[in-house]
């Protein structure tokens, strides 16, 4: 089973789900389907995030920071109003970034621009799509608009990335149309412990499912999918593939080159870095060093070199998770 097969499979799954609607549209816009170019298909969306593999996406709040990220070799930037660290300090309701800032960032750099919308806030997502961002993050870092639902992402032309703390959460988001998953961590803390915990939980369930598939025990896969409220076909696909059927980046608390290399070693396809860079004393150097450590994570010499580009004294101070009150945790939003 190959990763490409999973894209093709998910593409078909979407086609099945929406085949009736498509029939309706076909009649409505008769002849349009004969157009030889198919724009914004799931396949080009899975393909797009696949191009980001092995790279670093950096949180930015203005075009100056976006340029620093591009110069450092980031594969993309994520525009937000406040970095997670500042969201924690400021309190209140966190919403999507200013449209004017997003536009300015898109005009100043050539790498992909992503932006965050609130969980289930369909109209913030619509606005981001209208502005032309390349990737929408339906994110627990902002205040959720609905505590119990997510956006139906199949309806959008723009790909989505969603957070997940374990495999069932990830598969539920993929079923809703997410083209990419990021393991959640605990954002804005500079503490990588939760990101490690989440990716290990995902890995554990994948290896359990893979074991079932190898033993031909499809009943166990079915029972897993029922217990965890996930689609059986997606659980089966994951079991056969032996990895998440879409690209998975690690996020939440990554602050040093060593953190980035650790997450890659644990099986992440790439890294999101938020407060870790622009809340440190040395953003330019740190951004470059984290990019090098992400690419060469399997080469201790290169990671050591990257790590020596930065000083622990300049790192984001960090917050001990044990000092956070339960209501201050962001990772629990939107399961």
């Amino acid at each position, binding site marked *: 089973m190959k990763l490409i097969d999973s894209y093709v499979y998910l593409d078909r799954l979407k086609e099945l789900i929406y085949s009736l609607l498509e029939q309706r549209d076909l009649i409505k816009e008769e002849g349009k389907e004969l157009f030889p170019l198919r724009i914004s298909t799931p396949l080009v969306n899975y393909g797009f995030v*696949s191009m980001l593999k*092995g790279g670093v996406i950096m949180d930015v709040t203005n075009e100056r920071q976006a340029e620093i990220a591009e110069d450092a070799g980031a594969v993309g930037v994520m525009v937000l109003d406040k970095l997670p660290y500042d969201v924690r300090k400021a309190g209140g309701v966190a919403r999507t970034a200013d449209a004017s800032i997003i536009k300015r960032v898109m005009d100043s750099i050539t790498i*992909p621009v992503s932006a965050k919308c609130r969980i289930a806030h369909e109209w913030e997502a619509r606005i981001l799509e209208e502005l032309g961002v390349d990737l929408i993050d339906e994110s627990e870092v902002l205040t959720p608009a609905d505590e119990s639902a997510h956006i139906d992402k199949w309806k959008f032309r723009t790909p989505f990335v969603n957070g997940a703390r374990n495999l069932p959460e990830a598969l539920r988001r993929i079923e809703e149309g997410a083209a990419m998953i990021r393991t959640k961590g605990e954002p804005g803390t500079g503490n990588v412990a939760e990101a490690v915990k989440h990716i290990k939980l995902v890995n554990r369930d994948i290896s359990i499912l893979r074991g079932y598939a190898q033993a031909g025990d499809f009943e166990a896969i079915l029972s897993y999918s029922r217990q965890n409220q996930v689609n059986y076909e997606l659980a089966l696909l994951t079991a056969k593939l032996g990895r998440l059927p879409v690209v998975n980046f690690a996020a939440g608390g990554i602050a040093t080159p060593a953190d980035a290399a650790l997450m890659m070693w644990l099986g992440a396809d790439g890294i999101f870095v938020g407060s870790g860079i622009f809340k440190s004393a040395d953003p330019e150097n740190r951004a470059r060093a984290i990019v090098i450590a992400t690419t060469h994570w399997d080469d201790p010499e290169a990671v050591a070199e990257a790590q020596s580009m930065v000083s622990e004294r300049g790192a984001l101070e960090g917050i001990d998770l044990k000092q956070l009150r339960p209501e201050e945790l962001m990772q629990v939003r939107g399961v």
Partner: protein
Amino acid sequence: MKIGIIAVQGDFLEHAEIVREIGGEPVYVKKPMDLEGIDALIIPGGESTSIGKLLSRAGLEERVRELALEGMPVLGTCAGAILLAKRVTDRRVGEVKQPLLGVMDISVVRNFYGRQRESFETSVEVEGVGKVRAAFIRAPAIDQAWGSARIISYLDFPPYGRTGVAAIQKNVIAVTFHPEITGDYSLHRYILTLGKR
């Protein structure tokens, strides 16, 4: 046959899957020593600025350029095509400063068809290869070829007319789309035949 795949960033996994499928042995290239003993080289899709910067930082830039000029078959897809070009501009931002390998006499325009929202799938006819199922993802276009470089595939794109989507110069092929995402093996098979010559 050992096929090197530049693996500093991008969709090298998908390329490796296809190389394995057609009977080649994929070799991930992250350091100059990984280039030893390979018969052909693939530069995958990804972010051309990131790949370019990582190539020069890893000390790969010079050696890859030499290999291409010495006659090793090279396939560049999307970001790979940008890196192979001698001249690069961006449709929105204009002149861009980014490290390039610059081994092909072609000029490309980055993000030609628009942003991710405008990405699309289609089939294109490539001279010497045939019909290829192609995904264009924030794709560039080849607007000029000179010297011994030649454009070998065009696409009729409604708002902009005829655009170049593949070019060849001796042993080096640049395509602005992704055959590795659609599971089309024909271009990979084609570079294997270049290697046997």
